[in-house]
């Protein structure tokens, strides 16, 4: 286990015991990544704020939802943020008109310019490893993965949009996830 993961575990233990200091430190660590993710999925700052707000509040109210035996706190919490963001996108029909910019890979307005400096921590190292693993995927696999994960689209919607069979979307998604699993486990 990385040092950063151990620190997260201790902060979560404090939060679960009702220590607001533990909550504040986890917020300081994860508000930026969570907000960046929520903005990329929802494409609207106000909705991204709601997603991050709800995720942190859910963490405070139900800390037992995280089981350390199933992986690092980081992946649990960011997966929670992702789920809430995707659910919100699907609920909000007005998001149909959301900016295409939020779904592409270009830097976004409001991106923390000090990211590289501020994230010299383990989180910054992991971010680099994730990006390298993604770049290593075949373009067609990366495309379906990003449409699902950051675009919040279902596999059926992806098949329609790309005009490829649903089975192909499933196969590409599975292959991408298996490669990422192997690549990220190697560097964990």
């Amino acid at each position, binding site marked *: 286990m990385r040092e950063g993961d151990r620190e997260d575990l201790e902060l979560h233990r404090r939060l679960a*015991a*009702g220590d*607001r200091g533990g*909550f504040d430190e986890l*917020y300081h660590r994860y*508000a*930026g*990544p*969570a*907000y*960046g*993710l929520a*903005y*990329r999925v929802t494409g609207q700052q106000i909705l*991204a*704020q709601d997603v*991050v*707000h709800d995720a942190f*509040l859910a963490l405070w*109210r*139900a800390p037992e*939802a*995280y089981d350390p035996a*199933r*992986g690092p706190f980081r*992946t*649990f919490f*960011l*997966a929670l943020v*992702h*789920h809430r963001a995707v*659910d919100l996108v*699907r*609920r*909000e*029909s007005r998001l149909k008109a959301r900016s295409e910019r939020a779904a592409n890979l270009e*830097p*976004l307005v*409001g*991106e*923390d310019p000090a990211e590289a400096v*501020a*994230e010299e921590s383990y989180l910054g190292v*992991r971010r680099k490893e*994730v*990006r390298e693993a993604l770049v290593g995927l075949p373009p067609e696999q990366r495309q379906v*993965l990003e449409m*699902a*994960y950051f675009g919040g689209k*279902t*596999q*059926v919607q992806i098949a329609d949009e790309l005009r490829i069979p649903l089975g192909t979307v*499933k*196969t590409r*998604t*599975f292959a991408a996830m*298996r490669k*990422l*699993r192997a690549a*990220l486990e190697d560097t964990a």
Partner: protein
Amino acid sequence: MTNGHDDIEELLAGYVLRSLSGDDAAEADRVLTEHVPTCASCRAALDAFQSVAGELALDAPRMNPPETLAVRLRRELEPRGRSGGRWSTGRIVAVAASVVLVVGVGGIALTRGNGGLAKGQLARADLQDVTKAAVAPGATTQQLGHATEVVAPAPEKIYLFGADVPMPAPGMVYRLWAVSGTQPLYIGDFLPNDDGTVILEITLPAASVGSLFVTTEPAGSVPTTPGPRAWTSQDAA
């Protein structure tokens, strides 16, 4: 229906990305409740894919949220153990109305997708019926962790209603029990709907339902002895 571990893992890969719909989502529900809890290989695959889904978040550029968000959150943190505070009848009606509004705008059924699983003597309920029961003469409400038990006397109905209920860990379900005499009585398993709501009817006579409590258990496990209590009626403020 899926065959073999590769098919199941392919389904799980789509599940953790939140990208399943229709028959695939229903099949994932079935696999998660019937197969995954008893298969170490699929549980490991599910955990690994969940981790990948969490790591993928780091591909999004970090952005600092406005300072007001931290202020808003700190203001809303309740002391531990109050779990959102007791729900008054008025609050139930108000939240029920807001849920209806969201559903109306989004055009999404409350019980669709991966949530809403209910087994045993639990049935999915209609939100309007819960609201009606909550305001009926003689109705009582009791906080139960993240949800509220609503009991209406005539006709006798018992509902469990909650909003913003967190999902249990993957492969786990909430399990509802009643204390009847000295023995815990299994009522049923459930998961929140995709929008975090729980809207269920307990199809048992009120006389046989004493106090309620909820545990978190592996999906598909045999409900013999309850594990540690995750929600109890003592959580009430």
